[in-house]
């Protein structure tokens, strides 16, 4: 219960910061000022936006399917929020440390799709319906390259547990029960003879342990943009043709929930990318001979220093990825439907399939 409240608070905080950053980054990219009035540099803008949304009238269209219309935002947010249950925030802080976390996360996101269909249908509006259809088609298609990229990480790490994968990517490797006698080698290959178990830092991140995961990371990142309906994959809510997509009929609190779910999805996919590819809550600084940067910036497990450093690194890496998502939105034009499907099925999926094969071979080199 405590984990539920803490995660919810943390998520709300991140989403508010993110909504503000979105407007500021957009303004910066277009040489505008962005919000300036509310608070210093307009920093209270998104808080006030939320307060405004909460005061608005809750409108349910007369011709809508009322039960489905009201249920859909709850289902969408619940599905996304359930994904946060398996995310490890620090070395010893994880809401639910189940052994098949990665698989669970992939499965629970697909619940989101049912919610989108419910919202689109319940609105009884052709724009909402088209938006929901496009969104679902896109999410279902892009789950495949994303899943394959994640699968190659799982094959390298030999684990479906997010916390175990996190421990493998840093100096605390031997502190995880079951990994006491593991060693990390540079690029994962023992023949090179460089033991990085105590060096840690960026040298033990997954993209370094097996450099081919760098390609997997790019594939996952592109697919995750599509799964959270971000530009350039935003045809589900293309303003110029569909008004706003599946949430066109929603207002007030229900719209706030949908908005929250959308931004939570961005945060969730970035967190997963950081945990699987970019070293999770581990520091990027390696130990260099007497300068123990990695040890200094990791802290002690179970104490306040470990919690603070762990969450600091995890969140700062996540914010870097989120910033990249915001920047890409204002950099690339929207993809057409045929280009979208071409990219998914003819480019990303074959490359990801090849990666899974290569990851298996790399794993054989690692043992």
């Amino acid at each position, binding site marked *: 219960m405590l984990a539920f409240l803490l995660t919810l608070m943390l998520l709300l905080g991140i989403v508010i910061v993110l909504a503000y950053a979105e407007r500021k980054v957009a303004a910066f990219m277009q040489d505008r000022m962005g919000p300036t009035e509310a608070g210093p540099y307009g920093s209270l803008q998104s808080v006030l936006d939320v307060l405004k949304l909460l005061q608005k009238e809750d409108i349910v269209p007369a011709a809508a399917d009322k039960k*489905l219309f009201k249920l859909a935002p709850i289902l969408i947010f619940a599905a996304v929020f359930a994904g946060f249950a398996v995310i490890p925030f620090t070395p010893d802080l994880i809401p639910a440390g*189940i*052994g*098949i976390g990665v*698989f*669970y996360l*992939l*499965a*629970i996101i*697909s*619940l989101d*799709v*049912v919610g989108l*269909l*419910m919202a689109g*249908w319940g609105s009884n509006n052709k724009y909402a*319906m088209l938006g929901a*259809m496009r969104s*679902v088609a896109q999410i*279902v298609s892009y*789950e495949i390259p994303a899943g394959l990229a994640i699968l190659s990480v799982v094959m390298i790490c030999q684990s*479906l*547990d997010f916390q175990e994968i996190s421990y493998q990517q840093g100096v605390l490797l031997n502190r995880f029960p079951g990994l006491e006698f593991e060693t990390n080698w540079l690029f994962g290959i023992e023949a090179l003879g460089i033991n990085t178990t105590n060096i840690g830092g960026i040298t033990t991140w997954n993209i370094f342990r097996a450099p081919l995961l760098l390609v997997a990371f790019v594939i996952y990142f592109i697919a995750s943009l599509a799964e959270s309906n971000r530009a350039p994959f935003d045809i589900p809510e293309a303003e110029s043709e569909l008004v706003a997509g599946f949430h066109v009929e929603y207002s007030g609190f229900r719209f706030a929930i949908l908005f929250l779910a959308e931004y939570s999805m961005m945060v969730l996919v970035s967190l997963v990318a950081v945990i699987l590819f970019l070293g999770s809550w581990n520091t990027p600084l390696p130990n260099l001979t007497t300068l123990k940067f990695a040890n200094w910036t990791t802290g002690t497990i179970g104490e306040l220093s470990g919690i603070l450093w762990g969450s600091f690194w995890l969140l700062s890496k996540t914010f870097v990825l989120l910033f990249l998502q915001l920047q890409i939105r204002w950099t690339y034009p929207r993809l057409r439907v045929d280009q979208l499907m071409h990219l998914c099925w003819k480019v990303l999926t074959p490359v990801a399939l090849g990666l899974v094969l290569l990851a298996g071979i790399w794993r054989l080199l690692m043992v």
Partner: protein
Amino acid sequence: MLFYIFAAIAVLSGAYMVLTRNLLYAGFSLLLTLLSVAAIYVLLFADFVAVTQLMVYIGGVLVLILFGIMLSSRVHDKSVMSENTNVGWGITISLLTLIGLSYTIWQAGFSSLPWIQQAGTDVLAGQKSTVQLIGVKLMTDFVLPFEIASLLLLIALMGAAYIATDKQKV
């Protein structure tokens, strides 16, 4: 206790799915049924099966069903309704199945089976999940059924692709 809650939800939503006339509502109540069945799997320590249930049935099958209903229903601008036919035969056959199943379950005498009496609550025995066990079993004892199933799926995929292609006029 949890089991009875989830079982009740599964049965009630299943009954609603059968009794409702609106196909779309039936689809959405199927979601509830599948979710509570997944929860029951979790209570039985079958975590992998539970998540697979979510992945395959909700992420795949249910979305396909909903897509099918939505794409076909707005043709006449009203929701698709199901109709009752063969009421007599349907009731007879389902009653017979119920009697047959109850008789079989009664005869099996689950509480006296040796492996159920031996099974404790610590099913996982220190293991974190059932994934490794399932993987090893699939690649050793059950490799033939596993491969045949994958072949069957491949054939189905090729058949679907063949049916869906535009036939060139000869």
